[in-house]
């Protein structure tokens, strides 16, 4: 096969001979793939037969049978063609492909179900009304989640306002000042990103409600979210600042600029899009957080425009509440809430992707 192509004359070289066509003889030819293809077909057919004639039924039975039959067929083919070593290699390859395929399943299912169950409740109306005069059991075209959307916007925006300076300062400390304690700080920022979200909520409750006698407010929820957001912003910003070449800083310092001017006028502008990505990643991290809000914002069926006073709702809270009510319409509202929440999260997710790609 390969020699045929190789012998075909192409363009002439300086000395009159010809340059052959580049080939990749290590790529399997269709003829070599034939046994693999036949093996795969055998595996599918055999699995279907086994499932049909034995009590193994349903998707799980089919997958399990397909998996076992594939392993047997592939290792047999490899063993016959080559040796035991090749058979072990085939088995591991199939196992790893199956493991990776299994990871796809839940994601595909989740997205499919969100669309299937969430889309029916969608209407323009839900973005213009709240639940203050509507019962959860009212038809889906009544009421809406405007209050939750606005609440989410408030709670996340306030958390962002708090997290940006702290996260950025932490990142600057780790990269620009790089003091003696940088290792310790980095270590604890990593540890902080593992704080369970419920603990963040409990902490704000302990500080604000118990120690200061405060009540549920949007701001309290934001503080809890900020605790979760700071490590994400700080760590991503640190990675971004690390990528700024040292010569750029030295160029600034060599011109006689102070470190402060160099950072403010050279380093931060150079890292701008990366720093924005860091913030958006933080937003995406907390936009769907539920547990801390359950302990801090109190919930509300009506609009609350004041973030510093009175209960408020948020999308995750709205989903939680309707899921907990358990009636058919309430659950439909919960799915629609999930749909809207996922769209919001995916918008931020896509933004980080676009910004991240632009940098590279």
């Amino acid at each position, binding site marked *: *096969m*390969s*020699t045929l192509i*190789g012998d075909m004359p192409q363009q002439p*070289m300086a000395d009159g*001979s010809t*340059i*052959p*066509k*580049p*080939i*990749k*003889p*290590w790529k399997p*030819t269709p*003829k*070599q793939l034939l046994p693999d293809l036949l093996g795969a077909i055998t595996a599918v057919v055999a699995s279907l037969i086994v499932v049909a004639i034995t009590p193994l039924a349903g998707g799980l039975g089919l997958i399990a049978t397909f998996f076992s039959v594939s392993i047997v067929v592939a290792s047999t083919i490899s063993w016959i*063609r*080559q*040796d*035991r*070593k*090749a058979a*072990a290699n085939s088995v591991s390859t199939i196992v790893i492909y199956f493991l990776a395929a299994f990871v796809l399943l839940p994601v595909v299912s989740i997205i499919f179900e969100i669309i299937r169950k969430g889309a029916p409740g969608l209407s323009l109306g839900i973005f213009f009304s709240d639940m203050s005069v509507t019962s959860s059991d009212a038809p889906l075209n009544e009421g809406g989640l405007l209050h939750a959307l606005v609440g989410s916007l408030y709670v996340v925006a306030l958390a962002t306002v708090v997290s940006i300076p702290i996260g950025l300062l932490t990142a600057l400390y780790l990269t620009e000042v790089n003091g003696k304690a940088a290792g310790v700080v980095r270590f604890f920022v990593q540890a902080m990103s593992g704080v369970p979200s419920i603990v963040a909520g409990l902490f704000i409750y302990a500080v604000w409600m118990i120690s200061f006698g405060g009540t549920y407010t949007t701001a309290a929820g934001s503080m809890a979210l900020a605790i979760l957001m700071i490590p994400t912003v700080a760590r991503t910003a640190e990675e971004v600042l690390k990528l700024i070449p040292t010569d750029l800083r030295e160029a600034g310092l060599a011109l006689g600029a102070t470190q402060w001017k160099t950072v403010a006028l050279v380093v931060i502008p150079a890292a701008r899009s990366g720093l924005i990505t860091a913030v958006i990643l933080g937003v995406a991290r907390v936009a769907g957080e539920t547990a801390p809000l359950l302990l801090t914002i109190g919930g509300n069926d009506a609009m609350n425009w004041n973030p510093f006073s009175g209960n408020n709702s948020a999308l995750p809270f709205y989903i939680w509440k309707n899921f907990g009510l358990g009636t058919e319409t309430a659950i439909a509202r919960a799915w629609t809430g999930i749909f809207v929440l996922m769209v919001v999260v995916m918008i931020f997710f896509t933004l980080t992707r676009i910004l991240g790609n632009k940098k590279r």
Partner: protein
Amino acid sequence: MSQIKVNSLASVASARSSETSSQGVGLEARSIHAWFGQKHVLSDISLDFYSGTVTALIGPSGCGKSTFIRILNRMHEFIPTAAMAGEVLLDGKDIYRSGVDVTKIRLGIGMVFQKPNPFPSMTIKENVLSGLKLAQIKINNSDELLEDCLVRAGLWSEVKDRLDQYGGTLSGGQQQRLCIARSLAVKPQVLLMDEPCSALDPGSTLRIEETIRELSETMTIVIVTHNMQQAARVSDYTGFFLSDGGPGQLIESAPTSQIFSNPKDKRTEDYVTGRFG
């Protein structure tokens, strides 16, 4: 070392070639071309490597000699954009033929790399025998094989009392000889060495050159080197590669003594006399 005069290179080389006798062709490269993506990096290389001899490939950096040696045991294909043309014959059979088991090819044609790369998670003993484990070859007399390989690699006396220490505890030169021993354990017919001494000190280099000469009695050795003294000291045949901006070409190949004393091509002469490169 660099002060050695060129004419003395020729005498070293001639002394070396008279010691050995060639026994027939072990490995043949036929009209090898290589590409990375659209870039044509090697053009029409045909070269025979005789059993029981050492062939040195010399040339300035970027002339494609490392690419060429990697084609000889199918390491070239690990670069995703790589392509090639031509044939490499081991015992008269193309190692790129359809349906061949590439792992068997690499067992028959061993390779030693620029930087010593013993497996750090394995002891010295495990390193030497790692090829058997990787290829799932079972043998009974592993201790015998272990000693034999280490002796042939010239490392036995230095490590025989600490075979259960980790490979990383050895010096750079010892690590490289450990890598040679590791290659020997799977009993290859051909040993390819890609600048095996470039990361080592002069003492270790000489030690490895001795090893290469001893090994050449039983196998075919191909060594890429940028060090002409080394080529003169260890090789029986030398191939000179050069790229004039386009793909690398084999300018001249001949017995080493001839390359260093009486090269046919002006460019070879310029290179071995140190006028460029």
